[in-house]
């Protein structure tokens, strides 16, 4: 099948406005990362990760490696598990490439092939190929942003595993397997207990974090809801675009009055194209934006969870110290433990505050950028439609 073929995409050629639902992250010349192309074989996508750097910590100034989605997940998970980064917002892991939708549609199209005209089939196939390509572009984009978030972060960009990811020219899967066994369970436990820790209401000492907690919890549920509803909206747009294809194909067969039919055909076809573009632009600018920040806010929430956990640890260490003092036993250890907990908590709080503040700024800038672009695109497409419609109406009337 078509989906089984290899798709080779030269990413850099594609419109730059499709990149970054975040702000332009790739501007620090000391470490520039991009994904210039990607290969799709059956179910697996192979990304070419390209690095340009002036840093001496890398062996070469300019190099590329092939990476799979699982490699990205490995990198993300190791970063999450690293104690030192507990006070940082770890950029959300890119979601798995999902070609189910176009694949299912392609399957249905194959089954329905006998009932449609050749032209209709060809157009539907082209639409599906475009959809497939759009999914492909999105997944490349989201993987690229992940890396760029890391490269533009003062602390994370120096991570050893990050460097290995960028540079190691062998297959990472061996290292990945080992890591997974070590960290798999721990991470899962973290996520499970996170809500409980927060909600069980460890007394918050800091107003900032109290506010952040309230805000992020609320915002997360709202943005999750908006993302889901935006997705539905985009799907409906796509369905309409598909309908226009069928309409134009049938009009083609009708050809009652040749001239009129051709005009109708052209206008319907063009409207379909516009409708399709509207759908995919909305998807990219709005739905993808919401989706990305939903995940980013989850990452921010994770930071809060870790900090809340550290706070809980600190409070437990306090209790332990009190106990030790009562029993007059192991007081130095208890004191040391308490000191460490406090230190950790303070560190998390300090770093967390910075991260969350810059996160706000980043989010606002990204929303602004995408809203502007979306509005401009809507206007552009609508103006196109207006021109098309006016031309066609005039033509029909003058006949």
């Amino acid at each position: 099948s078509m989906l089984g073929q290899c798709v080779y995409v030269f990413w850099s050629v594609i419109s730059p406005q499709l990149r970054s639902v975040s702000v332009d992250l790739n501007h620090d010349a000391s470490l520039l990362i991009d994904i210039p192309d990607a290969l799709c074989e059956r179910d697996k996508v192979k990304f070419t990760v390209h690095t340009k750097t002036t840093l001496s910590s890398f062996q070469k100034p300019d190099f590329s490696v092939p990476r799979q989605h699982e490699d990205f997940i490995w990198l993300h998970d190791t970063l999450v598990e690293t104690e030192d980064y507990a006070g940082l917002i770890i950029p959300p892991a890119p979601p798995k490439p999902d070609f189910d939708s176009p694949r299912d549609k392609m399957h249905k199209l194959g089954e329905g092939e006998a009932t449609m005209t050749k032209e209709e089939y060809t157009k539907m196939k082209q639409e599906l190929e475009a959809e497939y390509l759009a999914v492909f572009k999105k997944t490349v984009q989201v993987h690229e942003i992940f890396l760029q978030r890391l490269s533009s972060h003062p602390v994370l960009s120096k991570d050893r595993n990050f460097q290995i990811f960028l540079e190691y020219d062998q297959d990472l899967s061996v290292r990945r397997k080992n890591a997974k066994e070590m960290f798999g369970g721990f991470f899962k436990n973290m996520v499970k207990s996170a809500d409980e820790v927060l909600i069980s209401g460890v007394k918050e000492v800091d107003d900032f974090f109290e506010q952040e907690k309230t805000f992020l919890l609320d915002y997360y549920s709202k943005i999750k809801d908006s993302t889901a509803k935006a997705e539905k909206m985009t799907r409906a747009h796509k369905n309409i675009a598909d309908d226009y294809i069928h309409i134009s194909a049938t009009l083609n067969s009708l050809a009652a009055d040749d001239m009129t039919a051709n005009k109708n055909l052209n206008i319907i076809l063009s409207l379909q194209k516009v409708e399709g573009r509207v759908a995919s632009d909305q998807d990219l600018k709005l739905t993808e934006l919401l989706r990305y920040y939903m995940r980013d806010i989850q990452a921010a929430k994770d930071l809060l969870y870790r900090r809340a956990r550290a706070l809980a640890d600190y409070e437990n260490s306090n209790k332990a110290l009190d106990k030790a003092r009562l029993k007059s036993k192991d007081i130095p250890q208890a004191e040391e433990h308490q000191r460490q907990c406090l230190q950790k908590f303070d560190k998390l709080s300090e770093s967390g505050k910075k991260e969350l503040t810059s996160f706000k700024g980043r989010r606002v800038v990204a929303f602004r950028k995408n809203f502007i672009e979306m509005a401009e695109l809507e206007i552009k497409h609508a103006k196109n439609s207006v021109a098309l419609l006016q031309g066609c109406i005039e033509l029909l009337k003058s006949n």
Partner: protein
Amino acid sequence: MAASSDRNPPPFPTAEESEPGLCDMADADSDEGEDIFVSNSNPVSVSRGVSQPDRVSEEPSDLFSEEAASSTAAKANGVHSDDDNDLFADTNVELSTDKSSSSARKEPSGPRHASTFTPSPAAMQPTSLEQLEEEEAKDSFDVDVAVTNPEKIGDGMNAYVAYKVSTRTSLPMFRSKVFSVRRRFSDFLGLYEKLSVKQSLHGCIIPLPPEKSVVGMTKVKVGMDDPSSVEFVERRRAALERYLQRVVSHPSLLQDPDVREFLEREDWFEDKFQEVENEEQQLRKLHVVVDSLVIHRKELCGNTAVFAKSLAMLGNSEDNTALSRALSQLAEVEDKMEQLHQEQAASDFFIFAELLGDYIRLLGAVRGCFDQRMRAWQRWQEAQSTLQKKREAEAKLLWANKPDKLQQAKEEITEWEARVTQYERDFDRIGMTVRKEVLRFEKEKAKDFKSQIIKYLEAMLQSQQRLIKFWEAFLPEAKAIA
């Protein structure tokens, strides 16, 4: 124009046949055929559509291009199970074997469609002694037929392939020198059925048409472009051509009115009826898709409204003031979009879908009036048949010498003669009316569709213009985010 210089009648084979009544076609098929075409000095007179496809169009351009123009009307993609109709063709033919004329599916000429074929005047009268001699000595080999231009008509289950049957002839019994008609596979089968019933009584060997093929036609369903379908259609086309060549090469069969009718009669009514059927089918299909469009548009409405609310909630949650404001504004824009989608859905339905629905029903009415004409024809035919029976009965009575019953028989004959005349007149009248009506209907339909589509597009245009305003109002809000 058909230049007579174009056509040198083929030299006559020395040996054999062409005695009227001799039906041994054993040699005729291969040998005669070869003889004619191999020994023919002027290749121009050989009409072999496939091997020289351009040749067919070299011929009098006005005839062929005219026909081409009138036949584009019902052009469509899609497939038809030829074989389904082949069964019907059989039953039709069985019914009609009792009658002397053609089957119910094919109507005899109503008012003949105004000259698709203009007989070239020069060819009708031999102008030289040479030609005179040739005319006198000519036999059935003055007819060449070709089967070309397979074309898929209709869509989906009911599509079929129409072939162009072109004839070149010098025989005066045909109304023209060069002409063509469109026939489908079942028409060829129908011809065979008629011939085999009539002529086989004389002991003639009737040439056979190619066999039906369900598998072959099913492949053609998928599209005529894949190699196996192309091959199938080509094989069939060639086989049909050979079949017809054999038929016209047979002197008795050539004289058969059914053969003449098959070759030259272009029935306006039949074609129009087919057109109407096709159009109805396409409109039905379109209606289904437009219904789907309406549903999806309504879904979009619902989704947009829900999304707008969600976005408003998100705006309330947002702690950055400017962004919060922008989110609320965006929610309002989406609300307005929902309004636009609603109106568009109404337009889809009330203008587009209803229009289609109306015309589907109207086309049914058009088909109805064709049916009326058919019934009038049948009544006429039945009356003729009854008249024939009465005459036979009279003859029998004469022979049996029963004068009292004879009088009654004579009266009945008179009565039925009057009826036949009446019904024939009725039939002609209905035919003219149907024709006028259909033409009027088509004009109205074209006008109607055009005006409705303009309305639909204008509504869409307004909608898009408002959309622009909404987003242009939002843009500064987005830019104000800080």
